[in-house]
């Protein structure tokens, strides 16, 4: 019964979304108050319906209802309950339902926190989000229904969840990632609504900012989790492979990063308006493109869902309508957006724009690198692969100007500044950078030019961020968003240091080894003590036990090889001793003749800094969102009290009205 209720909820929600996309928009354009007033109730109803649908599917998983095809395909009664629940988003259909539910969550969030905004504007934003929901709901209902039954015959037990996904990292990774992807729909809806309504002012930017920041924070968290998961679960110790699906999540991240910086300029200075709108459209469009790439099977990837051209075609048509529509609207209306703000060549505006240019260039590299193999093949030149060697060499050049602009930016004043004023400040970072570089060179044998440069520039950046915090914090207490920004930049520095060092200084040794023997890697002695057999709930495994020591430090590690019966899959669970300065990583390979095993022992200095960087960025975004001025905007009906306008303010108010008139 429950699956039918879930299915029915989806259908009603589709109808509601269609209403949401049509009536409030007409209401806002034609000034029909009743239509505008429909928006919020529809949004809340949608959220409730989709929550019901999501609950029904979760219930079916929890209670092992294998009469539901999707449950039978992706779960098993041997699975522990938490994996049964996370199996809801373990494959195509359910993960789409999660996508749609998260969209309704964001939409409800916008509806709830927008009381201080103009009702017409909110109605437009919600209508755009309703329009986005239509496509995905139709996609779920017509091509990927998770509630389909296997009647009249159904299996006694399910086929089990893909063993790769039976992991804590995978319980939280997809929801985080989707929160990020879908979260950009808010900025997208704000941008499109502004283009439709013809109102694009500082309020618009200020409103988009916290939403964009939270979506960006979620996406950062999602990508970081995914990278960390790949590191410990795939068993080869890699943390980023430039796989098409990774790229698909990286592109919206790059666009989103550019967007949060560009929004800052638009909010504070009223500049780059048209550019910001384009970025807001791009960030969500790239999320949709990513969804298409992952689900259409168009690219070869380790993570891709099962391919199906019909589904691919459906999403492609949807992309054409949503992205194509938004970009057409942009081409048509954006030249009416005038940025009146003036700035000089050396100003924070220009530095932030340089940062944007570099991010967009990086985005284009990733986009081309992902899609060009397809083009290359389609025009008859044969298959090519674009992977780590290409992307690594591009990024090693790219980060240099980026990190320089990033370091200088916060010191430079808005509107205009002189380089001579900040020149001396920039030397502050030079000393720590030099010390760190020499230490790295001597201690870690980091001797390639780009890694040393990476460490030097990142240390310089970190030192400048700290210096800037101290000096500007002296005069008056810094707002939370300032701390957030600094934390985010420190995160980037940590990320660069982590990548630069771990790329060059990691040492690994692949050996055949039997219990009782030991092998030495980089001063660490790995003693293979024993192999044990182990029976898990739905797998059997070998545990290989190691004693590791380097004289001062000694500990035991357990590397594991699991065999999942249902999928007849072999999974590697690496044995990892994490540390801030180095990870010890053992992965168990194949059983060889006799009692020997193939084992790879790794020492990976600073690898944890990569995820530390991600965590710092997420914390930074949280601090920015918690900043007082957003809380004031977001607080429910807080802005409704009347206030007196002073004489000076009223002059500028006229200016704004003038600006608006010009725009309309």
């Amino acid at each position, binding site marked *: 019964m429950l699956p039918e209720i879930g299915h029915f909820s989806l259908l009603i929600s589709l109808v509601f979304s269609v209403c949401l996309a049509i009536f409030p928009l007409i209401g806002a354009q034609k000034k029909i108050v009743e239509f505008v007033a429909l928006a919020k109730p529809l949004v809340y109803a949608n959220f409730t319906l989709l929550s019901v649908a999501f609950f029904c599917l979760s219930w079916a998983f929890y209670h092992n209802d294998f009469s539901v095809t999707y449950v039978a395909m992706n779960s098993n009664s041997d699975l522990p309950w938490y994996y049964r629940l996370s199996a809801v988003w373990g494959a195509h259909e359910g993960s789409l339902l999660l996508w749609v539910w998260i969209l309704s969550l964001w939409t409800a969030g916008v509806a709830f926190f927008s009381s201080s905004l103009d009702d017409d504007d909110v109605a437009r934003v919600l209508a755009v989000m309703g329009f986005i929901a239509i496509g995905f709901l139709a996609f779920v209902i017509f091509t990927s229904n998770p509630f389909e039954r296997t009647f009249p015959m159904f299996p006694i037990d399910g086929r089990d969840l893909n063993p790769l996904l039976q992991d804590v990292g995978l319980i939280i990774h997809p929801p985080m990632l989707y929160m990020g992807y879908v979260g950009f729909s808010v900025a997208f809806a704000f941008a499109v609504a502004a283009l439709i309504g013809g109102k694009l002012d500082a309020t618009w930017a200020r409103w988009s900012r916290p939403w964009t920041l939270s979506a960006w924070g979620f996406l950062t968290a999602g990508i970081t989790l995914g990278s960390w998961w790949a590191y410990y679960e795939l068993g080869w110790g890699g943390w980023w492979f430039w796989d098409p699906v990774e790229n698909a999540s990286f592109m919206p991240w790059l666009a989103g990063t550019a967007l949060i910086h560009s929004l800052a300029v638009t909010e504070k200075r009223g500049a780059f308006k048209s550019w910001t709108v384009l970025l807001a459209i*791009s960030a969500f469009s790239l999320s949709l493109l990513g969804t298409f790439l992952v689900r259409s099977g168009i690219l070869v990837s380790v993570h891709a869902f099962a391919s199906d051209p019909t589904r691919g075609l459906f999403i492609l048509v949807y*992309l054409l309508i949503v992205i194509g529509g938004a970009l*057409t609207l942009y081409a048509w209306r*954006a*030249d009416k957006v005038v940025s009146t703000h003036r700035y000089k060549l050396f100003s924070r505006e220009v530095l932030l724009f340089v940062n944007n240019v570099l991010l967009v260039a990086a985005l284009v590299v990733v986009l081309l690198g992902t899609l060009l193999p397809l083009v290359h093949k*389609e025009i008859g030149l044969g298959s090519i692969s674009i992977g780590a060697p290409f992307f690594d060499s591009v990024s090693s050049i790219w980060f240099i100007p980026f990190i320089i602009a990033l370091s200088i930016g916060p010191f430079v004043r808005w509107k205009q500044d002189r380089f001579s004023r900040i020149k001396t400040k920039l030397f502050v970072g030079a000393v720590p950078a030099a010390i760190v570089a020499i230490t790295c060179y001597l201690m870690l044998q980091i001797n390639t030019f780009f890694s040393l440069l990476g460490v030097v520039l990142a240390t310089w950046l970190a030192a400048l961020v700290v210096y800037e915090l101290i000096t500007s914090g002296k005069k008056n207490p810094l707002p939370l968003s300032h701390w957030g920004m600094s934390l985010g930049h420190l995160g980037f520095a940590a990320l660069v240091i982590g990548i630069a060092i771990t790329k060059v200084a990691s040492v690994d040794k692949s050996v055949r080894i039997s219990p009782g023997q030991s092998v030495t890697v980089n001063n660490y002695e790995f003693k293979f003590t024993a192999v044990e057999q182990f029976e898990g709930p739905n797998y059997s495994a070998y545990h290989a036990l190691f004693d590791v020591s380097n004289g001062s430090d000694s500990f035991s590690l357990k590397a594991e090889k699991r065999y999942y019966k249902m999928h007849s899959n072999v999974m590697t669970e690496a044995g990892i001793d994490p540390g801030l300065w180095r990870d010890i990583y053992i992965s168990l390979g194949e059983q060889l003749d006799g009692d020997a095993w193939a084992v790879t022992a790794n020492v990976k200095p600073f690898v944890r800094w990569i995820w530390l960087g991600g965590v710092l960025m997420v914390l930074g975004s949280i601090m920015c969102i918690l900043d007082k001025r957003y809380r004031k905007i977001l607080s429910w009906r807080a802005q409704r009290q009347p206030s007196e306008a002073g004489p000076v303010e009223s002059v500028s108010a006229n200016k704004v009205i003038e600006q608006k008139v010009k725009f309309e």
Partner: protein
Amino acid sequence: MKNYKLLIPIVAFLLVSIFLYKGLYSDPTNIENANLAKPFPEFQLADLMDENRLYSKADLLGEYTLINVWGTWCVTCRVELPFMTQLRQQGVKIVGVYYDNAAEAAFGELDVRQTRREVTEMLAQLGNPFQFNIYDEKRDLSLDLGVTGAPESFLIDDKGTIIAHRRGAIDHRVWQNEFAPLLPNNHGSNLSEQQK
């Protein structure tokens, strides 16, 4: 519209969409073999059934030959054996390259006998399309041919140039569309589809 640069994003997006659409209907795992239109590589390998009988490239020349890379361990190979046997009856020269499983190669002499038994058994059961089988024990020939697994098939002309290649099983449709038209006397074009 005055401002043409605002059109750039939408134009770029539409361009990308064209390729996305085309990509939907092309299989990304279908990669063209790099040896196509090149001469068949030189080799010196023994017969699968008789280690004293050696073959080289010369044994493949003189007539259009279908080279089939296969193994008893490979399920898809079983599927195509009956059809290939029909082809042989139609007069197509088919030579097998036995692609050994890594597992079997490791145990040496004894295992070759085991493999031979399996091969004899399987060919007796499903039909024997092969004039002879080359035993690619270390998979060196397969590597030179750019083989990624079994089954794979190559069609070579009388001078030993590779003129067609197929990854995966050959069935009636594939033969009809991709191989038969290349043969001088269009062998096997009148085969029925009964084995499907």
